């Protein structure tokens, strides 16, 4: 005991403020967090993977068997291939437009702030409100907007402009996918804008001034100064909104319920449908694992990119 105390004292001499007991053993401080993570993350994850290899139902005491039939039926089924295709289209267009619009709005707000224009803060707050609204509420808002009679807000406005008031925003399968993408862009652009705006505050102003004095136009100064400075945040933003969009199901459920047919059946909604409507825990778990793998790949790409950048730096 004495030896231990002496060794600790040698390594980390007590300061005037005193030495915290156990500081030499960081695992002690990490133990509670590790336990919590084990309990609420690792254990459920292992359970989901285990259940994905079963035909279990949500009912606790119904017998089930192990096997790979669930994965085989999912991967071999035409409906799952369609779901993946729809999900990737939904994510691709949502992410691209959320990034571009987020950047555009952030640059406008930043420019307004630098010029001392009024309303920059208000604009930021209003845009951020869309992000704070729960997905289900976003779905309901867009249900009202897309309503396919003259009572629908967009159809009414369209009618006023002489463009007809019977647009099939959600009953036409092709339009329905576009409609949920638009609703998701509306919701997700806010987060993207805030991240981009934060990034813009880190762009060195003197460097911008310097390239402008050297004769660079707005596009060239964006390409040579602003974009490289924003790149780390763009990467974070890209990963965040990609994962968030892959996991989106509440807004789609409220807006289209995955229909018409399976036109807007995204993967996360399929998981919900399997587990809570059809009570197929095994099949739902298998779909969750696929979703988890996709998200893991996205995060892996992010870490790879980050490590490479840091290594270069």
């Amino acid at each position, binding site marked *: 005991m004495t030896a231990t105390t002496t060794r600790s004292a040698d390594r980390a001499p007590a300061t005037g403020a005193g030495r915290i007991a156990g500081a030499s053993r960081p695992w002690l401080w990490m133990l509670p967090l590790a336990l919590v993570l084990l309990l609420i993350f690792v254990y459920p994850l292992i359970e989901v993977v285990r259940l994905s290899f079963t035909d279990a139902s949500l009912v606790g005491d119904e017998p089930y068997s192990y096997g790979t039939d669930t994965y085989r039926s999912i991967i071999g089924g035409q409906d799952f291939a369609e779901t993946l295709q729809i999900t990737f289209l939904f994510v691709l267009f949502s992410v691209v437009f959320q990034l571009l619009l987020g950047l555009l709005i952030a640059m406008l707000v930043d420019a307004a702030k630098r010029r001392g224009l009024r309303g920059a803060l208000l604009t930021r707050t209003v845009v951020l409100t869309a992000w704070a609204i729960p997905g289900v509420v976003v779905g309901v808002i867009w249900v009202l907007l897309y309503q396919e009679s003259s*009572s629908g807000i967009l159809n009414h406005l369209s009618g006023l402009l002489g463009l007809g008031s019977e647009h099939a925003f959600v009953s036409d399968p092709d339009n329905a996918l576009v409609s949920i993408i638009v609703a998701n862009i509306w919701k997700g652009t806010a987060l993207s804008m805030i991240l981009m705006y934060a990034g813009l505050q880190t762009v060195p102003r003197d460097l911008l001034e310097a390239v402008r004095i050297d004769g660079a136009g707005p596009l060239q100064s964006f390409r040579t100064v602003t974009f490289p400075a924003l790149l780390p945040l763009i990467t974070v933003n890209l990963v965040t909104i990609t994962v968030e969009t892959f996991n989106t199901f509440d807004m789609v459920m409220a807006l289209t319920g995955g229909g018409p047919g399976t036109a807007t059946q995204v993967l996360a909604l399929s998981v919900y449908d399997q587990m809570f*409507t059809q009570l197929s825990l095994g099949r739902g778990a298998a779909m969750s694992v696929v979703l988890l793998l996709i998200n893991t790949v996205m995060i892996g790409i992010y870490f790879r990119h980050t490590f490479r950048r840091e290594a270069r730096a």
Partner: protein
Amino acid sequence: MRRVSPAGPTLNRRRMLGLAAAAGAAGAAGLAGCGRNTVPPKSFRWQAIPTSSLQAPTQDRVSYLRTRLREYERATGWHVIPEVMSEDIDASMAKLLLQASQGRAPDISMVDSYVFGRFARYAKNLGPALEAAGLPLDGWFPQFRDVMTAETGQVRALQFNTDVRVLYYRKDLVPKPPASWDELLHVGKRTAAKGKYLFFPASRSEGSVNTALWPQYWSQGGRILNPDGTPGFAAEPNRRAMIDSLAYLRRLVTEGVAPRRIATFLGEDESNPDVIAGRAAMFIGGSWQGADLQELVEHEDFGENWGAAPIPSRSGDNHTCVAGGWTWAAFAEDPELVEQGTKFVIDSYVDDEGMARWCTLGGYLPTREAVYDHPAYRGDAFTEVFREHLARYARVRPLHREYQQVSSAMQVALSSVTSLSEEPEAAVDSALAQIV
């Protein structure tokens, strides 16, 4: 020897771990207390959906339930602990099923009648309670007896309300309600030419298959599930009956009788705005909509101007419709809790007066013939039609566990067909391929 840190007295590691362990144990005890142990003696947990609970949307219903709770507690000395399910019925039923299978379900709870088959094995025998209340099972309409017993040989649920689906029609535009598919197409085209359409839910929802698809299919002799739980339409002649049903619904859209946007209607109530706006000549809807629209339609007597008739069938006879509704089931292990919980719900919702008053307040249909003649029951302009439907046409959905998967697959098929994204035959094939 007591160790003292350089900064003075403080917690040593052992003491700190001891405290953490104590806190953990206290937390675990607290979590455990969230279960059965926290329920005080002489009390039980009573769980209802929002519209049948103390969170009901109308003051009349809330007042009625408060009065019944007060009377029950005063008379028995027992305390009722109210719990309310979420509005998402699918998720609520899934959660309740999980709880029931793990012995954690509320002592008495509402269960959607069409999924009761999954719950029956966990529900307690309510036969003695029914007998004590003087309510013979024979008093219920026959189709509900099957739900209540769920092939267990015992009464395990008390169905206390129901609903049926009918064709509502505007009497000035449709003097004689169509009985067959051909008649509906003929009348529908005529009214559509005047800008008045047929509405019904035809999207991915249980309400859509109940209202639009199952009646068409049943009326041709089809059955949803075979006795072994496989889809009844996997083989001929039922496969053809299902394809024809979908083809007919598609034709209603392609021939302009019904607008294509019905493919987005999740439930029967979504026809209401079009009825109120005067865009509907007919709609296939639920029995509750008659009373709702009587309140919602302004400057018009809905009950006077609209009629209700059986949903048109292929041949013009063999009409069918889906009857839904809710049941009470007891999950408590303690027989005394079962007895007390059942007594409360029988008094409030199930016996003649309870059912008459609750169905009047909620706009529901009673599940026993005798209650329609009870002085406390007041129906609406269409009640006699609904009563006849219950006696002649109404059917319940299969109680097999496979029903939900089959229904879900056919919801997708219906939505695909009415949105014109898939042909009926391909939609049926896709549905069959989805069913594992």
